[in-house]
Protein backbone atom coordinates (compact mmCIF):
# COMPACT_ATOMS: atom_id res chain seq x y z
CA UNK A 1 0.00 0.00 0.00
CA UNK A 2 1.25 3.46 -0.89
CA UNK A 3 0.83 6.77 0.97
CA UNK A 4 -2.10 7.70 -1.28
CA UNK A 5 -3.96 4.65 -0.04
CA UNK A 6 -4.05 2.63 -3.26
CA UNK A 7 -1.77 0.06 -4.84
CA UNK A 8 0.21 0.78 -7.97
CA UNK A 9 0.79 -1.55 -10.85
CA UNK A 10 3.77 -0.96 -13.08
CA UNK A 11 4.47 -2.52 -16.43
CA UNK A 12 6.95 -1.68 -19.12
CA UNK A 13 5.66 -1.39 -22.63
CA UNK A 14 8.55 -3.47 -23.86
CA UNK A 15 6.86 -6.87 -23.79
CA UNK A 16 5.48 -8.06 -27.11
CA UNK A 17 2.43 -9.61 -25.45
CA UNK A 18 2.30 -6.82 -22.81
CA UNK A 19 1.84 -4.49 -21.18
CA UNK A 20 0.39 -6.69 -18.43
CA UNK A 21 1.23 -10.31 -17.64
CA UNK A 22 -1.34 -12.73 -18.93
CA UNK A 23 -1.92 -16.44 -18.66
CA UNK A 24 -1.62 -18.41 -21.85
CA UNK A 25 -1.78 -22.15 -22.14
CA UNK A 26 1.31 -23.87 -23.54
CA UNK A 27 1.03 -24.75 -27.21
CA UNK A 28 0.62 -28.35 -26.20
CA UNK A 29 -1.94 -28.13 -23.42
CA UNK A 30 -3.84 -30.89 -21.67
CA UNK A 31 -6.90 -28.62 -21.98
CA UNK A 32 -8.48 -27.72 -25.29
CA UNK A 33 -9.10 -24.20 -24.10
CA UNK A 34 -7.72 -21.43 -21.94
CA UNK A 35 -9.85 -21.36 -18.77
CA UNK A 36 -9.36 -17.57 -18.50
CA UNK A 37 -10.25 -16.66 -22.07
CA UNK A 38 -11.29 -19.26 -24.58
CA UNK A 39 -10.72 -17.08 -27.61
CA UNK A 40 -6.96 -16.75 -27.25
CA UNK A 41 -5.59 -20.02 -25.92
CA UNK A 42 -1.85 -19.64 -26.50
CA UNK A 43 0.53 -16.74 -26.66
CA UNK A 44 -0.15 -14.88 -29.92
CA UNK A 45 3.29 -13.26 -29.87
CA UNK A 46 5.22 -16.54 -29.65
CA UNK A 47 7.40 -17.46 -32.60
CA UNK A 48 6.48 -20.69 -34.32
CA UNK A 49 7.58 -21.76 -37.76
CA UNK A 50 4.70 -22.81 -39.94
CA UNK A 51 5.77 -26.40 -40.40
CA UNK A 52 6.40 -26.88 -36.69
CA UNK A 53 2.72 -26.38 -35.99
CA UNK A 54 2.08 -29.81 -37.48
CA UNK A 55 4.39 -31.34 -34.88
CA UNK A 56 2.20 -30.37 -31.93
CA UNK A 57 0.36 -33.26 -30.30
CA UNK A 58 -3.11 -33.22 -28.81
CA UNK A 59 -4.23 -34.21 -25.34
CA UNK A 60 -6.23 -37.05 -26.82
CA UNK A 61 -3.16 -38.66 -28.29
CA UNK A 62 -0.64 -37.57 -25.60
CA UNK A 63 -2.55 -37.25 -22.34
CA UNK A 64 0.25 -36.39 -19.89
CA UNK A 65 2.03 -33.13 -19.24
CA UNK A 66 5.81 -33.33 -19.34
CA UNK A 67 8.43 -30.95 -18.05
CA UNK A 68 12.21 -31.02 -18.29
CA UNK A 69 14.71 -29.96 -15.67
CA UNK A 70 18.27 -30.30 -14.47
CA UNK A 71 19.50 -32.14 -11.40
CA UNK A 72 21.66 -30.69 -8.65
CA UNK A 73 24.43 -33.14 -9.53
CA UNK A 74 24.83 -31.57 -12.96
CA UNK A 75 25.92 -28.39 -14.66
CA UNK A 76 24.22 -28.06 -18.06
CA UNK A 77 25.57 -30.89 -20.19
CA UNK A 78 29.20 -30.12 -19.36
CA UNK A 79 29.39 -32.57 -16.50
CA UNK A 80 28.64 -35.50 -18.81
CA UNK A 81 32.35 -36.20 -18.83
CA UNK A 82 32.83 -36.01 -15.05
CA UNK A 83 33.20 -39.41 -13.47
CA UNK A 84 32.05 -38.30 -10.02
CA UNK A 85 28.81 -36.94 -11.52
CA UNK A 86 28.36 -40.19 -13.44
CA UNK A 87 28.69 -42.16 -10.21
CA UNK A 88 26.16 -39.91 -8.46
CA UNK A 89 23.58 -40.12 -11.28
CA UNK A 90 24.53 -43.17 -13.33
CA UNK A 91 21.48 -43.69 -15.50
CA UNK A 92 18.71 -41.67 -17.14
CA UNK A 93 15.38 -41.67 -15.35
CA UNK A 94 11.94 -40.14 -15.61
CA UNK A 95 9.85 -39.21 -12.58
CA UNK A 96 6.17 -40.12 -12.42
CA UNK A 97 3.60 -39.97 -9.66
CA UNK A 98 2.30 -43.02 -7.84
CA UNK A 99 -1.21 -42.70 -9.32
CA UNK A 100 0.04 -42.67 -12.88
CA UNK A 101 2.42 -45.54 -12.15
CA UNK A 102 -0.44 -47.62 -10.77
CA UNK A 103 -2.64 -46.77 -13.74
CA UNK A 104 0.07 -47.84 -16.17
CA UNK A 105 1.33 -50.83 -14.20
CA UNK A 106 4.78 -49.32 -13.85
CA UNK A 107 6.98 -50.27 -10.90
CA UNK A 108 10.00 -48.57 -9.39
CA UNK A 109 12.99 -48.96 -11.70
CA UNK A 110 11.04 -50.31 -14.71
CA UNK A 111 12.20 -49.23 -18.14
CA UNK A 112 9.58 -46.99 -19.73
CA UNK A 113 9.07 -45.30 -23.10
CA UNK A 114 8.10 -41.63 -23.22
CA UNK A 115 6.69 -40.41 -26.54
CA UNK A 116 5.70 -37.03 -27.84
CA UNK A 117 4.59 -36.28 -31.38
CA UNK A 118 8.20 -35.45 -32.19
CA UNK A 119 10.09 -38.40 -30.82
CA UNK A 120 10.61 -40.92 -28.06
CA UNK A 121 13.04 -41.68 -25.23
CA UNK A 122 13.52 -44.71 -23.01
CA UNK A 123 14.47 -44.33 -19.35
CA UNK A 124 14.10 -45.89 -15.93
CA UNK A 125 10.94 -45.00 -14.00
CA UNK A 126 11.35 -43.24 -10.67
CA UNK A 127 7.97 -43.51 -8.99
CA UNK A 128 7.59 -40.71 -6.47
CA UNK A 129 5.11 -39.31 -3.97
CA UNK A 130 6.38 -35.82 -4.80
CA UNK A 131 4.49 -35.63 -8.09
CA UNK A 132 0.75 -35.83 -7.62
CA UNK A 133 -2.04 -35.59 -10.16
CA UNK A 134 -3.34 -32.02 -10.54
CA UNK A 135 -6.99 -31.24 -11.04
CA UNK A 136 -7.14 -28.67 -13.84
CA UNK A 137 -10.55 -27.46 -15.00
CA UNK A 138 -12.14 -30.50 -13.40
CA UNK A 139 -9.78 -32.90 -15.10
CA UNK A 140 -7.01 -34.99 -13.51
CA UNK A 141 -3.71 -34.11 -15.14
CA UNK A 142 -0.62 -36.22 -14.54
CA UNK A 143 2.86 -34.80 -14.83
CA UNK A 144 5.96 -36.59 -16.12
CA UNK A 145 9.28 -35.14 -14.93
CA UNK A 146 12.16 -35.54 -17.36
CA UNK A 147 15.64 -34.65 -16.04
CA UNK A 148 18.05 -33.72 -18.81
CA UNK A 149 21.78 -34.52 -19.03
CA UNK A 150 21.68 -37.64 -21.16
CA UNK A 151 22.17 -38.20 -24.86
CA UNK A 152 25.46 -37.78 -26.74
CA UNK A 153 28.60 -39.45 -25.41
CA UNK A 154 29.38 -39.39 -21.72
CA UNK A 155 30.55 -41.42 -18.76
CA UNK A 156 27.10 -42.49 -17.54
CA UNK A 157 25.14 -45.37 -18.97
CA UNK A 158 23.93 -44.40 -22.43
CA UNK A 159 20.69 -42.42 -22.48
CA UNK A 160 18.42 -40.46 -24.77
CA UNK A 161 18.31 -36.75 -25.48
CA UNK A 162 15.29 -35.25 -23.69
CA UNK A 163 14.99 -32.60 -26.38
CA UNK A 164 13.84 -35.14 -28.94
CA UNK A 165 10.50 -34.74 -27.13
CA UNK A 166 10.27 -30.98 -26.76
CA UNK A 167 8.30 -28.65 -29.06
CA UNK A 168 9.75 -25.92 -31.29
CA UNK A 169 8.30 -22.76 -29.77
CA UNK A 170 10.09 -19.50 -29.05
CA UNK A 171 8.47 -17.24 -26.48
CA UNK A 172 7.22 -13.83 -27.54
CA UNK A 173 10.14 -11.80 -26.27
CA UNK A 174 13.44 -13.62 -26.05
CA UNK A 175 12.65 -16.83 -27.99
CA UNK A 176 13.17 -19.06 -24.95
CA UNK A 177 12.05 -22.52 -26.04
CA UNK A 178 8.96 -24.04 -24.47
CA UNK A 179 10.75 -26.98 -22.87
CA UNK A 180 8.89 -26.81 -19.55
CA UNK A 181 5.38 -27.75 -20.70
CA UNK A 182 4.44 -30.18 -23.46
CA UNK A 183 2.47 -33.36 -23.95
CA UNK A 184 3.66 -36.97 -23.85
CA UNK A 185 2.39 -40.48 -23.51
CA UNK A 186 4.18 -43.15 -21.49
CA UNK A 187 4.16 -46.93 -21.40
CA UNK A 188 6.29 -49.76 -20.10
CA UNK A 189 9.11 -50.60 -22.47
Amino acid at each position, binding site marked *: MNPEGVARLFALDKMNEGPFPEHYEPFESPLDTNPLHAKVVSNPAARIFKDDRDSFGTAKEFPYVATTYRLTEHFHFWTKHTRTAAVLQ*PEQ*FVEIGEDLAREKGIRQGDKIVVRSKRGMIKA*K*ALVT*KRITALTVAGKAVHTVGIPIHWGFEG*LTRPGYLANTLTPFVGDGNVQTPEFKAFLVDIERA
Partner: protein
Amino acid sequence: MALQSLDIKARSASTFAPPSARTTLEVAKLIDVSRCIGCKACQAACMEWNDLRDAVGVNEGSYTNPPDLSDQTWTLMRFYEEQIQGSLQWLILKDGCLHCAEPGCLKACPAPGAIVQHSNGIVDFHEESCIGCGYCISGCPFNIPRLRKEDSKVYKCTLCSDRVAVGLEPACIKACPTQALSFGSKETMLAQAEHRLTDLHERGFTKAAVYDPQGVGGTHVVYVLPHGDRPEAYGLPKDPSIGPLLAVWRSWVSRSLGVFTMFAVLVAGVFHYMKVGPLEEPRDEPRDGPGDGQGRPPRDASS
Protein backbone atom coordinates in the same frame (compact mmCIF):
# COMPACT_ATOMS: atom_id res chain seq x y z
CA MET B 1 44.89 -43.04 7.65
CA ALA B 2 47.12 -40.33 9.04
CA LEU B 3 49.23 -41.76 11.81
CA GLN B 4 49.40 -39.42 14.76
CA SER B 5 50.63 -41.79 17.39
CA LEU B 6 50.66 -39.13 20.11
CA ASP B 7 46.97 -38.43 19.69
CA ILE B 8 45.66 -41.96 19.86
CA LYS B 9 43.25 -42.44 22.72
CA ALA B 10 42.20 -46.03 22.17
CA ARG B 11 43.56 -48.81 19.98
CA SER B 12 41.79 -52.02 19.01
CA ALA B 13 42.85 -55.26 20.74
CA SER B 14 45.44 -53.44 22.86
CA THR B 15 45.67 -52.94 26.58
CA PHE B 16 48.56 -50.54 27.05
CA ALA B 17 47.90 -47.01 28.21
CA PRO B 18 47.65 -44.37 25.47
CA PRO B 19 50.07 -41.43 25.41
CA SER B 20 48.54 -38.56 27.31
CA ALA B 21 51.11 -35.73 27.33
CA ARG B 22 49.34 -33.89 24.54
CA THR B 23 45.71 -32.87 24.61
CA THR B 24 43.64 -32.08 21.56
CA LEU B 25 40.30 -30.44 21.07
CA GLU B 26 37.31 -32.74 20.77
CA VAL B 27 35.85 -32.11 17.34
CA ALA B 28 32.47 -32.74 15.74
CA LYS B 29 30.72 -32.46 12.41
CA LEU B 30 27.26 -30.96 12.56
CA ILE B 31 24.82 -32.08 9.86
CA ASP B 32 21.84 -29.74 9.81
CA VAL B 33 19.33 -31.82 7.87
CA SER B 34 16.89 -28.89 7.74
CA ARG B 35 19.32 -26.96 5.55
CA CYS B 36 20.33 -29.81 3.26
CA ILE B 37 19.16 -29.63 -0.35
CA GLY B 38 20.47 -33.06 -1.34
CA CYS B 39 22.88 -31.79 -3.98
CA LYS B 40 25.47 -34.51 -3.19
CA ALA B 41 28.36 -32.01 -3.30
CA CYS B 42 29.62 -33.58 -0.05
CA GLN B 43 29.54 -36.99 -1.67
CA ALA B 44 31.50 -35.74 -4.68
CA ALA B 45 34.00 -33.94 -2.42
CA CYS B 46 34.51 -37.14 -0.42
CA MET B 47 35.23 -39.06 -3.62
CA GLU B 48 37.64 -36.36 -4.78
CA TRP B 49 39.62 -35.94 -1.58
CA ASN B 50 39.89 -39.62 -0.77
CA ASP B 51 40.43 -40.64 -4.40
CA LEU B 52 37.47 -42.98 -4.43
CA ARG B 53 35.49 -43.82 -7.55
CA ASP B 54 32.62 -46.23 -7.17
CA ALA B 55 31.28 -47.99 -10.25
CA VAL B 56 28.85 -46.20 -12.55
CA GLY B 57 25.84 -48.26 -11.52
CA VAL B 58 22.21 -48.36 -12.55
CA ASN B 59 19.28 -46.26 -11.45
CA GLU B 60 16.90 -48.45 -9.51
CA GLY B 61 14.23 -45.78 -9.26
CA SER B 62 15.87 -43.66 -6.59
CA TYR B 63 17.91 -40.53 -6.09
CA THR B 64 20.17 -42.54 -3.75
CA ASN B 65 23.17 -43.33 -5.92
CA PRO B 66 25.26 -45.46 -5.52
CA PRO B 67 22.57 -47.59 -3.84
CA ASP B 68 24.57 -48.19 -0.66
CA LEU B 69 27.77 -47.32 1.16
CA SER B 70 30.76 -49.28 -0.11
CA ASP B 71 34.53 -49.36 0.13
CA GLN B 72 34.45 -46.61 -2.52
CA THR B 73 31.49 -44.66 -1.08
CA TRP B 74 32.22 -43.45 2.45
CA THR B 75 29.38 -40.97 2.59
CA LEU B 76 26.02 -41.32 0.87
CA MET B 77 22.99 -39.10 0.50
CA ARG B 78 19.92 -41.20 1.24
CA PHE B 79 16.51 -39.96 0.11
CA TYR B 80 13.26 -40.93 1.82
CA GLU B 81 9.69 -39.83 1.06
CA GLU B 82 7.70 -39.92 4.28
CA GLN B 83 4.24 -38.81 5.31
CA ILE B 84 4.74 -36.99 8.59
CA GLN B 85 1.82 -35.34 10.36
CA GLY B 86 -0.26 -35.44 7.21
CA SER B 87 2.25 -33.79 4.92
CA LEU B 88 4.80 -35.25 2.57
CA GLN B 89 8.40 -34.77 3.61
CA TRP B 90 11.38 -35.49 1.40
CA LEU B 91 13.91 -36.51 3.99
CA ILE B 92 17.53 -36.43 2.93
CA LEU B 93 20.19 -37.88 5.15
CA LYS B 94 23.94 -37.71 4.70
CA ASP B 95 24.84 -41.19 5.82
CA GLY B 96 28.32 -42.18 6.97
CA CYS B 97 30.36 -42.94 10.08
CA LEU B 98 29.19 -41.12 13.21
CA HIS B 99 32.52 -41.49 15.04
CA CYS B 100 31.03 -42.74 18.31
CA ALA B 101 32.67 -41.88 21.62
CA GLU B 102 32.32 -45.56 22.51
CA PRO B 103 32.86 -47.17 19.14
CA GLY B 104 31.40 -50.64 18.70
CA CYS B 105 33.75 -51.32 15.78
CA LEU B 106 36.84 -50.67 17.89
CA LYS B 107 35.54 -52.83 20.73
CA ALA B 108 34.81 -55.68 18.33
CA CYS B 109 38.10 -55.51 16.42
CA PRO B 110 40.54 -58.36 17.23
CA ALA B 111 43.43 -56.96 15.14
CA PRO B 112 45.82 -54.83 17.23
CA GLY B 113 45.86 -51.25 15.97
CA ALA B 114 43.52 -51.78 13.01
CA ILE B 115 41.01 -49.37 14.54
CA VAL B 116 42.11 -46.38 16.57
CA GLN B 117 40.28 -43.57 18.30
CA HIS B 118 42.04 -40.24 18.24
CA SER B 119 41.83 -37.98 21.25
CA ASN B 120 39.91 -35.47 19.11
CA GLY B 121 37.19 -38.12 18.79
CA ILE B 122 37.85 -39.40 15.27
CA VAL B 123 37.57 -43.17 14.90
CA ASP B 124 39.95 -44.23 12.18
CA PHE B 125 40.68 -47.52 10.44
CA HIS B 126 44.30 -48.40 9.73
CA GLU B 127 43.79 -50.78 6.86
CA GLU B 128 47.38 -52.05 6.91
CA SER B 129 46.60 -53.80 10.20
CA CYS B 130 43.14 -54.97 9.20
CA ILE B 131 42.73 -58.74 8.97
CA GLY B 132 39.38 -58.57 7.16
CA CYS B 133 37.40 -60.53 9.76
CA GLY B 134 34.44 -58.15 9.51
CA TYR B 135 33.80 -58.07 13.29
CA CYS B 136 33.64 -54.26 13.16
CA ILE B 137 30.73 -54.55 10.73
CA SER B 138 28.69 -56.58 13.20
CA GLY B 139 29.91 -54.35 16.04
CA CYS B 140 28.66 -51.12 14.41
CA PRO B 141 25.15 -50.12 15.48
CA PHE B 142 24.81 -47.88 12.39
CA ASN B 143 25.83 -50.42 9.70
CA ILE B 144 28.64 -48.28 8.31
CA PRO B 145 31.91 -50.21 7.67
CA ARG B 146 32.16 -52.01 4.35
CA LEU B 147 34.46 -54.93 3.51
CA ARG B 148 36.30 -54.68 0.22
CA LYS B 149 36.38 -58.10 -1.45
CA GLU B 150 39.52 -57.45 -3.49
CA ASP B 151 41.83 -56.86 -0.52
CA SER B 152 39.77 -58.10 2.46
CA LYS B 153 40.06 -54.78 4.29
CA VAL B 154 37.30 -52.70 5.80
CA TYR B 155 36.78 -49.06 4.87
CA LYS B 156 34.68 -46.17 6.13
CA CYS B 157 34.65 -42.39 6.58
CA THR B 158 37.80 -41.12 8.31
CA LEU B 159 36.26 -37.72 9.09
CA CYS B 160 39.18 -36.67 6.89
CA SER B 161 41.56 -37.30 9.78
CA ASP B 162 44.41 -36.39 7.41
CA ARG B 163 42.89 -32.94 6.83
CA VAL B 164 41.83 -32.40 10.43
CA ALA B 165 45.34 -33.27 11.63
CA VAL B 166 46.70 -30.25 9.75
CA GLY B 167 43.93 -27.89 10.78
CA LEU B 168 41.59 -28.22 7.80
CA GLU B 169 37.92 -29.10 7.90
CA PRO B 170 36.75 -32.38 6.29
CA ALA B 171 36.28 -32.24 2.50
CA CYS B 172 32.47 -32.59 2.70
CA ILE B 173 32.22 -29.53 4.95
CA LYS B 174 34.23 -27.45 2.51
CA ALA B 175 31.96 -28.43 -0.39
CA CYS B 176 28.56 -27.85 1.23
CA PRO B 177 26.85 -24.88 -0.48
CA THR B 178 24.09 -24.32 2.09
CA GLN B 179 26.03 -24.52 5.37
CA ALA B 180 24.11 -27.64 6.25
CA LEU B 181 27.49 -29.03 7.25
CA SER B 182 29.74 -27.39 9.79
CA PHE B 183 32.81 -28.49 11.66
CA GLY B 184 34.41 -27.37 14.87
CA SER B 185 34.79 -28.30 18.51
CA LYS B 186 32.06 -30.56 19.79
CA GLU B 187 31.07 -27.89 22.28
CA THR B 188 30.62 -25.23 19.59
CA MET B 189 28.74 -27.63 17.35
CA LEU B 190 26.32 -28.56 20.12
CA ALA B 191 25.76 -24.88 20.88
CA GLN B 192 25.13 -24.23 17.20
CA ALA B 193 22.73 -27.17 17.08
CA GLU B 194 20.80 -25.74 20.02
CA HIS B 195 20.59 -22.42 18.21
CA ARG B 196 19.18 -24.19 15.15
CA LEU B 197 16.66 -26.01 17.29
CA THR B 198 15.29 -22.72 18.64
CA ASP B 199 14.86 -21.52 15.07
CA LEU B 200 13.23 -24.76 13.91
CA HIS B 201 10.85 -24.82 16.89
CA GLU B 202 9.78 -21.27 16.05
CA ARG B 203 9.18 -22.30 12.45
CA GLY B 204 6.78 -25.05 13.50
CA PHE B 205 9.10 -28.05 13.63
CA THR B 206 8.17 -28.63 17.25
CA LYS B 207 9.70 -32.12 17.27
CA ALA B 208 13.08 -30.99 15.97
CA ALA B 209 15.90 -32.55 17.95
CA VAL B 210 19.64 -33.08 18.06
CA TYR B 211 20.80 -36.61 17.29
CA ASP B 212 23.81 -37.30 19.50
CA PRO B 213 22.89 -40.78 20.78
CA GLN B 214 24.08 -41.41 24.31
CA GLY B 215 23.80 -45.19 23.88
CA VAL B 216 27.20 -45.02 22.16
CA GLY B 217 28.53 -42.31 24.47
CA GLY B 218 27.59 -39.52 22.07
CA THR B 219 28.95 -39.13 18.55
CA HIS B 220 31.35 -36.84 16.75
CA VAL B 221 28.94 -36.48 13.87
CA VAL B 222 25.84 -34.80 15.20
CA TYR B 223 22.58 -34.35 13.30
CA VAL B 224 19.89 -31.71 13.63
CA LEU B 225 16.74 -33.57 12.63
CA PRO B 226 13.60 -31.51 11.90
CA HIS B 227 11.52 -34.57 12.81
CA GLY B 228 13.70 -35.57 15.72
CA ASP B 229 11.05 -37.74 17.33
CA ARG B 230 11.34 -40.15 14.40
CA PRO B 231 15.05 -40.71 13.63
CA GLU B 232 14.11 -44.04 12.05
CA ALA B 233 12.31 -42.11 9.28
CA TYR B 234 15.79 -40.90 8.32
CA GLY B 235 17.18 -44.42 8.52
CA LEU B 236 18.86 -43.77 11.88
CA PRO B 237 18.35 -46.15 14.80
CA LYS B 238 16.20 -44.62 17.52
CA ASP B 239 18.26 -45.78 20.44
CA PRO B 240 21.54 -47.24 19.21
CA SER B 241 23.79 -49.12 21.55
CA ILE B 242 26.54 -51.66 21.26
CA GLY B 243 25.13 -55.13 21.91
CA PRO B 244 25.60 -56.91 25.25
CA LEU B 245 27.60 -59.67 23.53
CA LEU B 246 30.08 -57.07 22.32
CA ALA B 247 30.33 -55.62 25.81
CA VAL B 248 31.60 -58.95 27.22
CA TRP B 249 33.69 -59.78 24.12
CA ARG B 250 36.75 -57.77 25.21
CA SER B 251 35.92 -57.47 28.91
CA TRP B 252 37.55 -59.21 31.89
CA VAL B 253 34.77 -61.81 31.81
CA SER B 254 35.70 -63.23 28.42
CA ARG B 255 39.41 -62.87 29.14
CA SER B 256 39.12 -64.72 32.44
CA LEU B 257 36.96 -67.31 30.77
CA GLY B 258 39.64 -67.82 28.13
CA VAL B 259 42.46 -68.14 30.65
CA PHE B 260 40.36 -70.42 32.85
CA THR B 261 39.59 -72.67 29.89
CA MET B 262 43.27 -72.93 28.96
CA PHE B 263 44.25 -73.93 32.47
CA ALA B 264 41.31 -76.28 32.78
CA VAL B 265 42.39 -78.08 29.60
CA LEU B 266 45.96 -78.34 30.90
CA VAL B 267 44.87 -79.70 34.28
CA ALA B 268 42.42 -82.11 32.68
CA GLY B 269 45.22 -83.30 30.40
CA VAL B 270 47.53 -84.01 33.34
CA PHE B 271 44.84 -85.96 35.19
CA HIS B 272 43.94 -87.87 32.07
CA TYR B 273 47.59 -88.85 31.61
CA MET B 274 47.86 -89.98 35.22
CA LYS B 275 44.70 -92.05 35.01
CA VAL B 276 44.83 -93.48 31.48
CA GLY B 277 48.48 -93.09 30.60
CA PRO B 278 49.95 -92.49 27.14
CA LEU B 279 48.16 -93.58 24.03
CA GLU B 280 49.66 -96.86 22.82
CA GLU B 281 49.85 -97.52 19.11
CA PRO B 282 49.15 -101.17 18.26
CA ARG B 283 52.06 -102.86 16.48
CA ASP B 284 51.66 -103.49 12.79
CA GLU B 285 50.48 -107.03 12.27
CA PRO B 286 51.42 -109.02 9.19
CA ARG B 287 48.56 -108.69 6.76
CA ASP B 288 46.98 -111.11 4.38
CA GLY B 289 46.96 -110.33 0.71
CA PRO B 290 49.59 -109.57 -1.86
CA GLY B 291 52.41 -108.66 0.57
CA ASP B 292 55.61 -110.63 0.92
CA GLY B 293 54.39 -112.37 4.03
CA GLN B 294 56.77 -110.43 6.31
CA GLY B 295 54.64 -107.37 6.95
CA ARG B 296 56.03 -105.34 4.05
CA PRO B 297 53.52 -103.37 2.07
CA PRO B 298 52.55 -104.54 -1.39
CA ARG B 299 54.75 -103.21 -4.21
CA ASP B 300 54.47 -103.10 -7.92
CA ALA B 301 55.62 -106.28 -9.62
CA SER B 302 58.38 -104.40 -11.45
CA SER B 303 60.13 -103.07 -8.33
